[in-house]
């Protein structure tokens, strides 16, 4: 089956340096009723509280919000990890946050989100690694692929900072390498194949 024909319970995205611009490019393509929850770790300054969400919401139709402690994950939302907390997925489909030490010098860390999402969603998970200047997310990508999930990296040549997608690709566990427009199109395609609920 083509990966865009599969059914997904969640989409996780990791981005670091250069992420805001590409995030806008992808998320603004999505309709307000996009039917798969999207959960994002974007590396951000710790004393910036909600600016990222506010900027994105102005450009996007789909609802953008910061993930709350114990919040139930629901379609139609794009959730962002809050600054200075790790974002984790619980088995009951809720978020939890923690203040454990930075992973890959990052809090929130992409690996922490990806690893816990892999445990919960297994093959019904789509993971995307975008621009960034470090290696965060690579370990998570591997774990997601090994659990049967789908993995995508931004085409490094099109990334402002190619190190992060490159590191993910070098694990050998990235299935698709796409530019921003193709990633957006991929998301729109997957939307058509979800269960009607």
């Amino acid at each position, binding site marked *: 089956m083509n990966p865009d024909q599969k059914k997904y319970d969640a989409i996780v995205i990791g981005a670091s340096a250069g992420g805001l611009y590409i995030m806008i490019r992808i998320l603004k393509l999505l309709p307000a009723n996009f039917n798969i929850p999207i959960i994002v770790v974007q590396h951000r300054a710790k004393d910036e509280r909600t600016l990222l969400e506010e900027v994105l919401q102005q450009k996007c139709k789909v609802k953008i919000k910061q993930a*709350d*402690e*114990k919040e139930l994950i629901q379609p139609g939302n794009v959730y962002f990890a*809050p600054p*200075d*907390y790790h974002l*984790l*997925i*619980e*088995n009951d489909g809720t978020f*939890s*946050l*923690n*203040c*454990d*030490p930075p992973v890959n010098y990052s809090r929130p860390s992409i690996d*922490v989100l990806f*690893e*816990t999402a892999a*445990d919960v969603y297994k093959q019904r998970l789509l993971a995307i690694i975008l621009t960034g200047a470090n290696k965060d997310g690579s370990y998570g990508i591997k774990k997601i692929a090994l659990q049967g999930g789908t993995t995508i990296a931004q085409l490094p040549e099109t990334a402002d900072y190619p190190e992060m997608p490159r590191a993910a690709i070098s694990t050998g566990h990235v299935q698709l390498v796409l530019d921003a427009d193709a990633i957006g199109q991929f998301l729109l395609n997957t939307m058509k194949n979800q269960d009607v609920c």
Partner: protein
Amino acid sequence: MIANEEYRQFLESVRFVYGYDFTEYAEASVIRRISAFMDGKKINSLKDLGKMVLKDETAFEHFIQEITVNVTEMFRDPFFYKSLRKNVINRLATYPFIKIWIAGCSTGEEVYSMAILFREEGLLERTIIYATDINQDALQKARNGISSITHMKSFTENYLKAGGKKSFSDYYKAKYNAVLWDKSLRQNIVFSAHNLAMDRSFNEFQLILCRNVLIYFNQSLQNKVISLFYESLCPFGFLGLGNKESLLFSEKQKCFEEVDKREKIFMRTK
């Protein structure tokens, strides 16, 4: 990967044998910490971990210290401290004698931050700070009053943003790669072990801080712990939580008023 059923059995055994109850902690965080411990010790399964820690108390102690340690910083979320200065200090100053409980104090950075703030506000002499944590190693570090020098630059920035009135370096001596907090800050601090999941209230306080601890608990335990704080606060006493924490899962929610919504400072009003 740790299977769910196995995980629950392991926590039940730990509770049965040692009385430490992690069954109401947020699972994803505990599982990550247990996995990290197992990786570090090259333990392959939860069954093997169980064999190791359930028979050997020393091994268990080591395990507990590793999975319950939290990290913190001086004046973390500086605007929280600024809000304390603005919204809470004046009212606390009306008490002849002030008791504060810092629950989940970890290695003590928040405790020393509060001691500095209360010194600058002229209240430290008539204040007692009870600082508690589940983790004995962390408590010992807190008692020693030594922090790594690594983060002093960001601590100093935090101190200034928190409305610090002096020079941050007045409060510590730096040597080699560590800093020693001014010993006079410590004279009214009582460090003691307390397990929020199991232990009861032990005094009545005008101010309780418990920041970034509740996020490690599930809703049911959060509710119990907020009730414990409620019982431990005097009427019109204050409760300060972490930036992303709330009273949402507490049956006592209506007994509190928001003093500062953004900084998560509440007052017991009923």
